């Protein structure tokens, strides 16, 4: 008996805490999705047929795909220098990745507002130089959301990419060079394929993160390009419709669990690979 009991002294506190404070309440949220305002499936049918909500889903998907592609490309460039640059370059790259990474999401969103808003720095410079007459509209729209999200996601793309690049065997690259391949060819035909798993992992990670992301889209979108997470917020606090918010949350949770399962499959070592 003690064999089963003793581990529980250590394991139980956290498990009980999460069961009471997280799993049970999540069951409650699922309950809301079926019972508010009245019992039935109407929240799910609404979420999947209402053109307004569908357009939010589509916008989220579109923005997330764009953010993922841009972040992974930019992250790849940074990761390349972080892993393969000279020591000084490596340190500088590291600072460009880690300083923004540790700064709060609110501060970063505010930085973009300061830079891109109509009274911000960029419009000030452009007007000062006489390039434009009226300030450009760069935030409180989809453009601002994408810029801010890409900035937030790049470090999350860099980490898996950098670890994939660290496992690339230098000798393979040297061999390709020795056989007469040009630098460009070594990069595209040897290096990139060898880091393909890292690319997939980074893309999935960024996509999963982006799809449930709340703060940056809410601030830089300014309520104009609402994404799924902000929809949930608005349905809870502005047009009280708890059932629908709960149903959208459950759909989001299911979608993300499926993507995470894919990510885990991607990251798990394959037989005979190494």
């Amino acid at each position, binding site marked *: 008996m003690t064999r089963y009991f003793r581990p529980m*002294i250590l394991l139980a506190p956290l498990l009980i805490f999460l069961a009471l404070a997280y799993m049970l309440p999540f069951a409650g949220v699922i309950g809301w999705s079926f019972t508010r305002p009245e019992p039935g499936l109407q929240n799910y049918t609404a979420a999947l047929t209402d053109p307004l909500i569908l357009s939010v889903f589509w916008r989220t998907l579109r923005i997330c795909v764009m953010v993922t592609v841009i972040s992974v490309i930019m992250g790849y460039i940074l990761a390349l220098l972080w892993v393969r640059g000279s020591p000084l370059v490596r340190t500088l790259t590291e600072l460009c990745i880690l300083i923004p990474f540790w*700064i*709060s999401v*609110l501060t970063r969103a505010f930085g973009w507002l300061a830079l891109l808003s109509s009274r911000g*720095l960029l419009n000030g410079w452009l007007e000062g130089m006489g390039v434009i007459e009226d300030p450009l509209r760069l935030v409180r729209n989809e453009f601002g959301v994408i810029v801010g999200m890409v900035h937030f996601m790049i470090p999350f793309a860099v980490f898996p990419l950098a670890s994939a690049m660290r496992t690339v065997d230098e000798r393979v690259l040297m061999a390709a060079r020795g056989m007469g391949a040009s630098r460009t060819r070594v990069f595209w035909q040897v290096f990139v394929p060898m880091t393909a798993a890292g690319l997939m992992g980074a893309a999935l990670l960024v996509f999963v993160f982006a799809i449930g992301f709340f703060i940056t889209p*809410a601030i830089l979108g300014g309520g104009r390009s609402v994404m799924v997470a902000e929809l949930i917020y608005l349905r809870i606090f502005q047009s009280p419709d708890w059932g629908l918010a709960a149903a959208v949350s459950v759909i989001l949770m299911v979608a993300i669990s499926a993507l995470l399962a894919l990510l885990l499959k991607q990251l798990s070592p394959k037989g005979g690979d190494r």
Partner: protein
Amino acid sequence: MIRLRPGLLAILLAVLVGVFMLLPLLAVIPVSFTPKRFLSVPEGELSLRHYRTLYEDREWLEGIWLSLRVGLMSAGFATALATFFSLGIWMFRPRFAGVLMGIALLPMVAPPVVSALTLYFFLITLTQMNGVFAYDTMMGVALAHSVMIVPFAVVLVSVSLAQVDRRMDLAARAMGAGLGTRVFKVILPNIKFGVITAFFLTFVLSWEEIAVTIFITSVEAVTLPRLMWQGLRDNIDPAIAAISVVLIVIVTAVVIGRAVFAALKERRV
């Protein structure tokens, strides 16, 4: 051995990306010195009024103080729970270790907004039972933050446990040490730094937590991020630029300090 270094084009592109990463952080600096009451770039005249606001305005001081207390409480609680849990997994290797670990990491992998709605449900249910751990109270926020940060503490403590030599624990057990002695006298001293790191990281995470905090507070328990959020959503208050500069300077100093420390250590070896 000759290394294949990135080419000129890669370096050029990376400089552009690096500028993109740092630009919004730099943009905050001039804005924080504006003499005006709204978001603007100072023209000629500079002013420190927005920095003064930070330590004269009760709202900001209370936000900082609340965030500090919530951070210390939730980080302490979460680190303690996570340490015992990780020890349990490491020492006993229970049968469903993978599943148990998955449960512990759940709040980390779920989208923040789903966690926010879940914790909102949790706290409004609790509010009907008591007034301490309730919606829009300090203890309520600390409880919700604990849920959100506990997975990170589990990861960090587990990583540092993975480096402990099991034979040490076996030796202690063979000498007749009980569970308490093994945990407190043998294993914990060896993972001290992991536990301290977990506490520090979870404190920072709680200090910055905003997605959940928006859902579970309204007017009473206004943490620093919540205060910034209000200022960003409505009219943009330049005091946010001032607090942002302060936070950016702290983070930059820590990150550069660590890089210098690492470089010095490398040179000495």
